[in-house]
């Protein structure tokens, strides 16, 4: 299946200022290895889609910016000559063509003989498991089917890179999970260079070899999903990826003291005034277990495999605690808490 020759992509001081003066992207340097899947993650307006469109050739970077494909400058090359596959949130399938015609469109443009187009379209239909839809009209398809057709259409032309702009955002949660898995398998098996734009951190964590977290047109952090999650570089990254708890207090003699009580923490830096930690690094103590941290349950949500607790500890925001204990939690209940010092971050 690996008939695609992946390429590396590099951006050099690519900035984008729109005609109305809005600065969408601050000068950005980025290199993406051949065959790598890179996810641009950030809230809307962070510049992730603009970056993707600069790579695609749909936007031109401000003067001085350069886009390199395999080391070759393509900044002035229009999109139709860049050979990149694109997948959009709105699918962007041609309504006047059938499913097969949509998938074969890029091949027809390349003047491939129709017998070969048929073979390739057949391959694509098989790969996406949509053989039965070949002759359907686009308006007869569900959202998930449409996105499969869009993927097949983008891949059919054997692009040198695949650019996906929030491809799953328009789908419902369950379908999103299924298709996410399919896209992951697809990208691995094709070994294609892929750039995936999303605002959904779960998608980013699942798909990305590396994640580029963006904020206000700037890169906040680049790294593997695990690094981004466990060692966020900024408060923004810490808050945007996953859930982060915070406690304010002061360190004295290896003990962090806050309103909720004391936390023994031998390696504590002396100047720590705020600590951050993930919900999985805090737990509810068993009855009888000594605890110097106390809180009151503000609300409890039973999620089946676990219970998510919001615990009031005298801070601005309640702590989020995930408990797998087989017991009921009631609002207003006093509980003891224990934090694993290995999970504590200071930013």
């Amino acid at each position: 299946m690996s008939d695609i020759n992946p390429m590396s992509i590099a951006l050099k001081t690519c900035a984008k200022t729109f005609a109305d003066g809005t600065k969408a992207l601050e000068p950005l340097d980025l290199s993406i290895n051949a065959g790598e899947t890179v996810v641009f993650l950030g809230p809307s307006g962070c510049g992730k889609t603009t970056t993707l469109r600069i790579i695609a050739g749909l936007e031109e970077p401000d003067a001085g910016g350069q886009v390199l494909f395999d080391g070759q400058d393509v900044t002035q090359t229009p999109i139709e000559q860049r050979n990149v596959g694109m997948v959009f949130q709105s699918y962007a399938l041609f309504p006047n063509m059938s499913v097969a015609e949509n998938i074969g469109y890029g091949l027809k443009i390349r003047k491939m003989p129709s017998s070969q187009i048929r073979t390739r379209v057949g391959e694509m239909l098989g790969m996406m498991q949509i053989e039965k839809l070949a002759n359907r009209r686009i308006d007869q398809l569900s959202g998930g089917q449409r996105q499969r057709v869009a993927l097949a259409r983008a891949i059919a032309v054997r692009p040198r890179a695949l650019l996906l702009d929030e491809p799953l955002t328009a789908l419902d949660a369950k379908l999103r999970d299924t298709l996410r898995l399919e896209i992951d398998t697809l990208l691995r098996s094709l070994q294609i260079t892929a750039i995936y734009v999303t605002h959904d951190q779960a998608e980013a964590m699942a798909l990305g070899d590396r994640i580029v977290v963006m904020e206000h047109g700037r890169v906040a952090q680049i790294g593997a999903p695990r690094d981004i999650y466990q060692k966020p570089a900024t408060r923004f990254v810490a808050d945007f990826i996953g859930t982060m708890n915070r406690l304010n207090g002061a360190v004295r003699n290896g003990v962090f003291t806050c309103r909720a009580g004391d936390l023994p923490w031998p390696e504590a830096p002396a100047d720590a005034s705020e600590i951050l930690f993930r919900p999985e690094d805090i737990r509810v103590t068993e009855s009888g277990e000594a605890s110097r941290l106390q809180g009151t349950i503000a609300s409890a949500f039973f999620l089946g495999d676990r219970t998510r607790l919001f615990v009031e500890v005298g801070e601005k925001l309640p702590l989020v605690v995930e408990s797998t204990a087989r017991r009921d939690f009631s609002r207003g209940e006093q509980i003891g808490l224990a934090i694993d010092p290995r999970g504590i971050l200071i930013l």
Partner: protein
Amino acid sequence: MGPRVKPGVTAQIFPSPRASSCETRGPIFSVPEETTTKMQRETRRLILLLLPAGIFFSAFFLIPMAELFLIGGTGKEGWAAYASIITNRNYFNSLLATLGVAVLTTIVTLIISGISGVFLQRHKFPGNGTLVAMLTFPLAFPGVVIGFMVIMLAGRQGLIGTVSEALTGDKIVFAYSLAGLFMGYVYFSIPRTILTVMAAAEKLDPKLEEAARSLGASPFRVVVDVIIPGLKPAFISAGAICFATAVGAFGTAFTLAAKINVLPMVIYTEFTLSANIAMAAALSFVLGAVTWIVLALARTAAGGTVAAAG
């Protein structure tokens, strides 16, 4: 301020839709007779609702058309009047000329308006709004004014004639022919076609064009494969109006010259000068019927794709 009505009171006067739908669903499980009366009542209600439209349609369309058709057969030749439209060279040529001018007008108008409509929608420049507003000007002009403008441009004392005479010594004059009529119709049809195209162009998804380009389509292929199919419904509806107007327009032709051999002029001549009322009626009926057939064919030919695009 009118008298206040408590919400509760309103609810009693107009039973909620939920309540009434329960009512209609109920009888399925009870006596069938009741269902029949319910259905009969529903049919009667529908007929009653259709009545105003029915009366209007009969009074202003069905009855006059039938009358026109019957009058067409009351002349000296009787029903042969209808056949003479084909057999009489004069009538037949004017029918062909009318349809020819109308088809050409439609095609040229769609090309001009398609390009400018998409352009005006896509490119916002200073004065864009004013220009679009000014484009609606010709919509208000009667055919006479348009004829007058064509004469000023391409008539014996017209601009084109004067310039061409100064440059080549030959005076180009075409206002008083089918060419002049064609120019007037195009001028008249462009505004509303541009407005229709602009409204449709606004709804085109720019992502479709981006997708096509990412697959390697040149700007020309994008126009052929994405923009034109997307605008097709607008082209058909605007084109139909354009065609029908060009077939039936009389004022412009009348202003330009009595010589112009288009069907509305022939009907006018038969009706007022020759007092051949039966022939005028027969020609009118055929003119209407032919236009209707052409439009119906155009719609059917485009039907499948229009439905798919919707």
